[in-house]
Structures are given as structure tokens and as C-alpha cells.
């Protein structure tokens, strides 16, 4: 059996790649993809430790998060379409009609 810390490292790496994408990219679609990556990093943890602890709740939870991630993308792409219609761009920095 592979030691638990390697799973933690792998998922942390995937999570950080997603976070890096969010911090550096300006395309809203790539933003959504990076969020998917972060959600899947959590899934790696859940499945790996489900096997480690010998109970199934983590694996079943990861099925739920997959469905939720799809729902989030469905809503997200709809909103990005509305953004494109209004601003003719999917760059997250062009939408600046309001300022704080």
C-alpha cells in the first residue's frame, strides 16, 4: 500500500496547479477549468483516504462532488455566455462597470 503522505502531496499539487491557474489566467473558461482541477484534488483525497480508513463514505461523497461540479459548470457556462453577450469578451478583467 502506498503511504498516505504521497496521496496528500499529489492532491496538494493538483490543488495548487488549479489555484495557480486562477491567479494567473484571465479567461473565464480557464478559470472554470481550474476550479474543476481544485475540486478533483479534493476528490483524490477523499478516495485515497476512503481506502486508507477502510470506509466507503469518502468514495460516495466523491461521486456527489462530481455531479455537483457538473452542475456548477452548467451554471457557470451560462453566466459566461451572458457575459460574452454584454461585453463581447470572456476576459474576467473587462467587466468593470462597477468599482469598489
Amino acid at each position, binding site marked *: 500500500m502506498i503511504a498516505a503522505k504521497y496521496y496528500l502531496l499529489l492532491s496538494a499539487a493538483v490543488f495548487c496547479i488549479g489555484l495557480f491557474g486562477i491567479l494567473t489566467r484571465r479567461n473565464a473558461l480557464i478559470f472554470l477549468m481550474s476550479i474543476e482541477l481544485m475540486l478533483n484534488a479534493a476528490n483524490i483525497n477523499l478516495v485515497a483516504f476512503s481506502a486508507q480508513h477502510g470506509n466507503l463514505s469518502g468514495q*460516495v461523497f466523491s*461521486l*456527489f462532488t*462530481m*455531479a455537483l461540479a*457538473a*452542475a456548477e*459548470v*452548467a451554471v457557470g*457556462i*451560462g453566466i459566461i*455566455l451572458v457575459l460574452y453577450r454584454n461585453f463581447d469578451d470572456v476576459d474576467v478583467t473587462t467587466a468593470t462597470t462597477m468599482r469598489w
Partner: protein
Amino acid sequence: MSNPWIAIGALGVVAVAIPLSMMAISSLLRPRVPEQGKTTTYESGEVPTGTPRIRFNIQYYMVALLFVIFDLETVLIFPWTVIYRDAVSTAGLTTVLVPMLVFIGVLVVGLAWAWRNGAVRWVRTPRRELTTKRES
């Protein structure tokens, strides 16, 4: 007992070495005849025009979206099917079947709503409508 990972490492080395050596040897042996026709995208085929980034009809998006959502619901049905037989024998048919029927019923309400509101109706472009009218 040698470490079994050595075999996997050796496999990896061989897998990289074979294509690399094939490319290297063929570049040493083959004659070089540079010609313009060889650099086109489709050699002895169509000459491509325009950019590869074209806009798709937005209606593909609706279909794809509905597919993604209803496709992923099978993920939630899957664990239920795995335990179905055992669960029926211990808990009885209604306790096992009714919740899943309720779940699918909710999905059916959603699908019926999407259908009635034209999410899957394929709207033709005005030009296309014109040609079909002329044909008829």
C-alpha cells in the same frame, strides 16, 4: 528479491528509447528533398481556408449541457444498482425502490420543463428556412 519497480522503470526507458531511436535513425538514412507541397496541412488534399477557430451554433451548447447533466446523474444511480439485490433482500422492495423513483421523477420534471420550454428544439437559421420554403 529485486525491487519490482526496476522492471517498470526499465519498461519506461524502453518505451521512450524506441520512438526516439526510430526518429533518429530515419533522419540519418532518409534523403532530403525539400518541397513546398510537403509543408501544407493536408498533403495532397484540400487547401485550408480561414482560421481554425470558428463559432459553433449556440444550440449545440444546450444539447451538450443537457447531456452533461443527465449523464452525470447516472453516477448517483450507480452505487444504488450495486447494492440493489442485497438491499431488497434485507430492507424490502419499497424502501429500496421508492427513493430512486422519486429521484428519477424529479429529473423527469426537470427534463419535461426543459423540453416544453424549447431547450431541445432546433431553431433553423432564417436563410435555411428560406431555402426549405422555396423547395416546398
